[in-house]
């Protein structure tokens, strides 16, 4: 066996053993039911969870949050023209000169409670970057993040907290490793790079109502031919493989059996069922039809809510979750011509806002509001200037949202871009390139460091997880947490 395998197995054992230690007790009846008492659960005293919601395709942050003072609104409307969200329709954010896209009105409560914070013009950076530096840099200068404006590369930079898209591991995964969390990143949205470590994939769980287990091979399957079949499967997956990816494959399979034994009952629970939490169900009520959560992100965040509430089963006092939505690559039909409040982007933001609001309400209801912080990520922002197909193209810096009881909300963070095509924030200068692609003024690293600092990472751990953070001097974190 090679060293890499030994290391991997050691890491895996730690994860599985810790997790499995109280398996029998954890699955006892009423674990979730106890939370219905609506008191802050005992574990909340030292429990924290981060929930990343990745908006694949590049969310148009320029229409998600819009300046509402006359001067800047007019600048905005002047460039956005038909794509502009009418000022009167914006969901007002009291105390600041911005409003949310009206499809996200459900987040108004969190704003009023001071638990929602927009963060402006965030994006991948290797170091602080001025327009002059950007313009002077050669195409492959290390001061520029790699392959700007490319979906796959910019997703990787956001997910890995890096300026190099060859980076293999995610910042969520590395943080889990650095903080020795019991579980790896738990993803309810597939095998995203955010949760990868050098040794592990994120733990991917299916949605509510799904069976997370192998039929006929679960603990309850005790008929002799089933046991014989399981013994044979175990023997097959215990074999060292001739190819390296085969060893990863068998390790993932062994983990899958162990994790499904622990989590399958919790994963399967749907609203209203015996093991369901009345608090969570009430918070998601507007998204539940016929006993099922209706939207994709709603299902994912309902699952995360159960996993937070079911901490006795899930284990660990620090947990990073990953959820996602797709479809944000609104090159065309971002709006319906003549009706800027309709169209693809409004539909997407409604799903996002409704699901975030329900999840926030669930955490508050569980008494875990200040223990759980949600935040958005996305490939990139979109061009400030629309294209000819009622859409927008790929850009760079973008607006993001952070939500939770610990968030110092009711205020905005970062610096809103100067809404001038060809201005100080725009990468463009010549007439052909005046689309408004903002050079970020806050780095993903600073955004992530703020989140991870709250989560419990020391300065040393932050430097290890986010290797470019040192390039930002003393401006390591923002103040939103």
């Amino acid at each position, binding site marked *: 066996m090679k060293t*890499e*395998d030994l290391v991997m197995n050691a890491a895996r054992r730690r994860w599985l053993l810790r997790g499995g230690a109280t398996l029998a007790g954890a699955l006892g009846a009423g674990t979730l039911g106890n939370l219905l008492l609506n008191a802050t659960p005992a574990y909340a005293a030292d429990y924290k969870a981060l929930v990343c919601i990745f908006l*694949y395709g590049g969310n148009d942050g320029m229409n998600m949050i819009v300046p509402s003072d006359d001067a800047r609104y007019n600048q905005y409307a002047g460039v956005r023209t038909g794509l502009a969200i009418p000022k009167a329709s914006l969901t007002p954010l009291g105390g600041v000169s911005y409003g949310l896209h009206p499809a996200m009105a459900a987040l108004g409560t969190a704003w009023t409670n001071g638990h929602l914070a927009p963060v402006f013009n965030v994006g991948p950076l290797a170091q602080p970057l001025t327009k002059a530096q950007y313009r002077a840099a050669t*195409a*492959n200068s290390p001061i520029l993040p790699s*392959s700007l*404006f490319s*979906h*796959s590369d910019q997703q990787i930079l956001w997910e890995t907290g890096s300026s*190099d*898209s*060859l980076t*293999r*591991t995610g910042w969520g995964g590395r943080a889990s490793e650095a903080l020795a969390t019991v579980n790896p990143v738990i*993803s309810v949205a*597939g*095998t995203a790079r955010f949760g990868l*470590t*050098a040794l*592990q*994939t994120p733990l*991917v*769980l299916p949605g509510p109502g799904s069976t*997370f*287990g*192998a039929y*006929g091979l679960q603990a309850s399957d005790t008929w002799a*031919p089933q046991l*014989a*079949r399981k*013994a*044979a499967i175990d*023997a*097959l997956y215990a*074999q060292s*493989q*001739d*190819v*390296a*990816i*085969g060893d*990863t*494959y068998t*390790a*993932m*399979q062994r983990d*899958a*059996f162990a994790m*499904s034994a622990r989590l399958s009952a919790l994963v399967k629970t749907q609203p209203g069922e015996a093991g369901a939490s009345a608090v969570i169900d009430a918070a998601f009520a507007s998204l539940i039809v016929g006993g099922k959560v209706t939207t994709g992100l709603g299902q994912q965040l309902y699952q995360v809510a159960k996993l937070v509430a079911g901490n006795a089963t899930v284990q660990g006092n620090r947990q990073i979750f990953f959820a996602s939505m*797709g*479809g944000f*690559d609104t*090159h*065309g039909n971002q709006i319906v011509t003549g009706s800027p409040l309709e169209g693809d982007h409004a539909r997407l933001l409604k799903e996002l806002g409704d699901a975030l609001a329900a999840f926030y309400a669930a955490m508050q209801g569980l008494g875990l509001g200040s223990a759980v912080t949600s935040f958005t990520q996305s490939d990139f922002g979109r061009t400030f*200037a629309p294209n*000819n*197909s009622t*859409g927008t193209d*790929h850009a760079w810096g973008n607006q993001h949202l952070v939500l939770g009881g610990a968030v110092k909300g009711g205020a905005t963070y970062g610096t809103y871009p100067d809404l001038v095509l060809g201005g100080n924030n725009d990468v463009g200068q010549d007439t052909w*390139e005046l689309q408004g692609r903002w050079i970020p003024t806050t780095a993903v690293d600073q955004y992530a460091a703020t989140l991870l600092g709250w989560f419990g990472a020391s300065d040393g751990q932050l430097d290890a997880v986010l290797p470019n953070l040192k390039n930002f001097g003393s401006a390591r974190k923002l103040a939103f947490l």
Partner: protein
Amino acid sequence: MRLADQATFGPTESLVTTIQAQGISAWIAAQMALNSSRYTSGNGGEVHQYTGSGDFCDGKGTTCWRDWSSTEPLVWDFYRNALTQPDQLRQRVAFALQQIVVVNNLEVSGTYGFRLYYNNLIDNAFGNYRQVLKKVALSPVMGDFLNSANNDKAAPNENFARELLQLFSIGTCELNPDGSLKAGACTATYSNDIVRSYAYAMTGWTYPAGGATPWGCWPAGMNCRYYGGDMIPVASYHDANERKLLSGVTVAAGTAAAPAMESVLDSLMAHPNMAPFIGKQLIQHLVGSNPSAAYVTRVASAFNSGKFQSFGTGVKGDLAATVAAVLLDAEARGDTLGSRNAGKLREPAQMFTGVLRALNGQSDGDALSWWWGDALRQHIFRPPSVFNYYPPDYPVPGTSLVGPTFGIHSANAALERLNYLAYLLDWGGSTPSASVPSAVGTQVDLSAFVTDAADAAKLVDRLSLLALGQALPATPRQKVIDAVSWWTAKTDATNWKTNRVKAAAYLVFGSPNYQVLR
């Protein structure tokens, strides 16, 4: 057996016999001569010609959207062809191409248009990659998907231009001929102004004539959405300025849309990245996730020369030569056995078909889309975006290697792979659906193997030879035989032999030895 896994949708006992009798090179040549698979199911273009009131599907029954707008009818064709049509290699290459030049049914709809698109890929599987790209660039399905249809010079949409460069032809980083990054780092292949130049050069195309809506067609001078043919140029929307493209190609001022498109294709075909970029992905789809640099070089060389042994026309971009180079290479034929870097995690669709073909099964594909396709994140024709189901460079944890299929593999997927086997073997698969034309359900036929079931070891070894090309390793082999042997005339007088086949097939196809191709 290895070739059958690389070049078909899975070995059968008779296929392995055929390849062994014919010889590998002759078998490949014979395969390339076949051209029998076609997408034929689903309805026509009337869905984009409706000028009545209400919705097109009003009053047309519950399967209207499925049969007129979705790709489901094509999924039926895909799996039927994969299981029964003899032109297996053509289908595998087309399947690889459809994962490179990706469109999806999430963002655009119109069954008849997808039918044309994928039939083009089948037709051109052993043609020239330039022709593949040309058909893709002129496809109204692609035009709708990536906004190159009705693209106006006034504020061109960059979507298609960017992905044409990044995904369909040359990639974002300069490559050596062996597919590795120049100087070991990413040197950008193009800048944003190049992307815009391509976007401008490809403005001024609209849908073919034939579409209609109750509200007329917009914008003025452009045709309504319609997928029944190639896109056509509209001069007034086409950019007339000089545009500098890659490879030293310039579109002169005043060039019309059609010749400008030829210049776009010229500039891409001339780019040194294309051969290793496309060649390496073909290797990854057909053979292994981590080909050696020398292997990529040999395949890229065949792409560039258009010739490999007796295969190909000698024109750059020849896919017959490229595919032959992929499959006949010593590395594909087994000289890396024993290398830690070899192997490929079987794609879910390959597993679906592989088990069905080996076990003399049949499928109309109906259960392999929304059910098993979604469960394993490879629902044919519905990849989440133009970036396919997974990236070609997805890192495999615990190694320094990549594994594209690992991009959709997880603890949950690991269990679902076994559940698919439980579905086929223990639950009896699916019976034919009344709503699917000529439905056959999804079922295996174990009768051919029941004849060996009295001898558990013989049964397990026969299935192992078919699925793996060799016996299982001794320790797990014995456990498998033990599990199979539980079934006897005493435990189930009626079905013990069939139950033995089910147990043996579950374990052999559920083994890591099968799931990870060597």
